[in-house]
């Protein structure tokens, strides 16, 4: 029995992520799914308020709320979808929604879980992903030498 973790910073290209899981996770393996629950879109906010946008705060927060709502909905839908996949393919699933500021907890969990590999789906869309956290996590993963498959919106891009 092997143990993997899938961390989702992006909900783009999930079809390809699912194909990757189907290929790699065998019956009786365990998958820890950690899906990011976006609470704000700070880059988008800043961009629309002062870089090119000049939109009023109310308008920008309306746009930001729409973005956050849809991301949260995507996160919950995907947890349901992956639960169905786990039941159909016979692997164990431990799913959890995480918040961005809890990145330290994720690191701790990765360390303690004795994983055989980790899959992460980042995004190139800077308005909805936090590039600072991405660099931080990638550097840290390199340090601990855990086998990893890195995706950007479903496209595999291992360093």
């Amino acid at each position, binding site marked *: 029995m092997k143990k993997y973790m899938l961390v989702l910073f992006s*909900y783009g290209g999930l079809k390809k992520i699912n194909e990757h899981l189907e290929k790699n996770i065998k019956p009786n393996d365990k998958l820890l799914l950690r899906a990011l629950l976006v609470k704000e879109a700070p880059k988008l906010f800043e961009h*629309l308020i*002062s870089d090119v946008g000049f939109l009023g705060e109310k308008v920008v927060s309306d746009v930001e709320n729409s973005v956050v709502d849809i991301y949260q909905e995507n996160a919950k839908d995907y947890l349901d979808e992956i639960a169905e996949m786990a039941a159909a393919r016979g692997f164990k699933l431990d799913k959890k929604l995480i918040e961005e500021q809890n990145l330290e907890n994720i690191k701790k969990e990765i360390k303690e879980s004795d994983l055989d590999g980790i899959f992460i789906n980042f995004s190139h869309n800077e308005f909805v992903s936090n590039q600072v956290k991405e660099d931080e996590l990638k550097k840290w993963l390199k340090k601990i030498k855990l086998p990893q498959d890195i995706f950007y919106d479903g496209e595999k891009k291992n360093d």
Partner: protein
Amino acid sequence: MFKYLKEIVKYTGIIFFIILLVMPTMTGLNPAGQRALAVFVLVLSFWVSHVLPLSVTSLLGIALLPLLNVMTIEYTFSLFGSKAIFFILGALILASGLYQTGLGSRLAFNIISFSGKSPLKLLYGILFTAAFLSLIMPEHAVAALLFPIVLEIAVSLDLKRLESNYGKLLFLTMAWGTVIGGITTYLGGARNLLAVGLLEKHYRISIGFFEWIKYSWPIPFLLLIVFAVIIARFAKIDIEDTSRSLEKLQAESEAKGSFSKAEKKLVLILGSVVFSWLFLSNLINIAVTALLGGVLVVALRVVDWQEVESYVNWGVILMYGGAVVVASSLVETGVTDWMAARFFSQLELAPFLFIILLAIFTSILTEGVSNVASVAVILPLAFSAAEAYNLNPVILTLSVALSGGLAFLLPMGTPPNAIAFSSGYYQIKDALKWGLVLKVIGWLIYILVARFYWPLIGLEVFI
């Protein structure tokens, strides 16, 4: 990569600013002109690199001009009080009414609901709604207003992010509809009025509200038609039925009920304002009408002042004001004359080719730089060329302002693109693929309009 490029632009601007300040005055240029050029280079590099918020960079430009004795403090500050700035102010208050009362989204729901069950017609519904609303309110506000509606359509149709081609088309159509519509009137993109403000300041030539539409309309009209044809013929629509989203839209539309009192008042105010802009502009300046419209919106309690303030980002006024001041300083101190003699008169280019290249260059610059900054930077240079080639400054103003609005490629080019991109339904490469096609078609349409339509209505290339 963008990060490094921005750093390079920032430091290049600072270095050239210092060099221009300390080096001996260049032949043919007076000392004040050289310092104005230094400020222009610094402000340009800051606008491009976003070192500071755009409005703060504008303030820096306004402060540096009297500090460096380019112009007197009284004159510098008086340039801020341009008619264009006050028109924009009034128009923003009017647009806040459209947004806050829900009249804008009611219009959007009603128009899109007409599209029926066909996926293609739904795309057309979004495209034409976006373009139509951008005739009467700023394009970025239209994108913000349509965004939740389009997002709801995508969710109700269960379109998967980055996987559904129809999902990509929905958001790109929304963004590009507003971009195309936004160049038609002064209300869609305030850069249009900024350009006319600069024209008026330097040549004492004015372009009225209706006159602008008379010049501009063929470009958005033809672009919309071509884009509609591209969607129908070449885009892959990977769903067959949109009845689920139609039901949702109709339900939302019905839930809005009949027109509220505030909406009725706003319709009356907007009707009167537009009537005045179109038919009474000889009697009442369009900026005065815009201000009166803004006053009426608050006085008749369509929206209260707090709501207006939460809608309007006053930074835009600082940005536009600063752009007017910095651009004007180049003309006032003779920098544009110097550039005309030094550079443009040496160029061996056919004048019409020069105009085309200018439009193309502006439309490329606007992809990476705020379109207001593009217009503020390019137009004074274009005026230099007008003097060197005896070109009609109205044609140059139209060429820069209209091209400066057509940003299709990158999210940083214009807010509608950024808003659509934040949906996560498409990647930059998708926007590049279709946007580049649209961009080239836009250039071709512009060439046809400049070559055949404008002379037909009395707008000649030469004066």
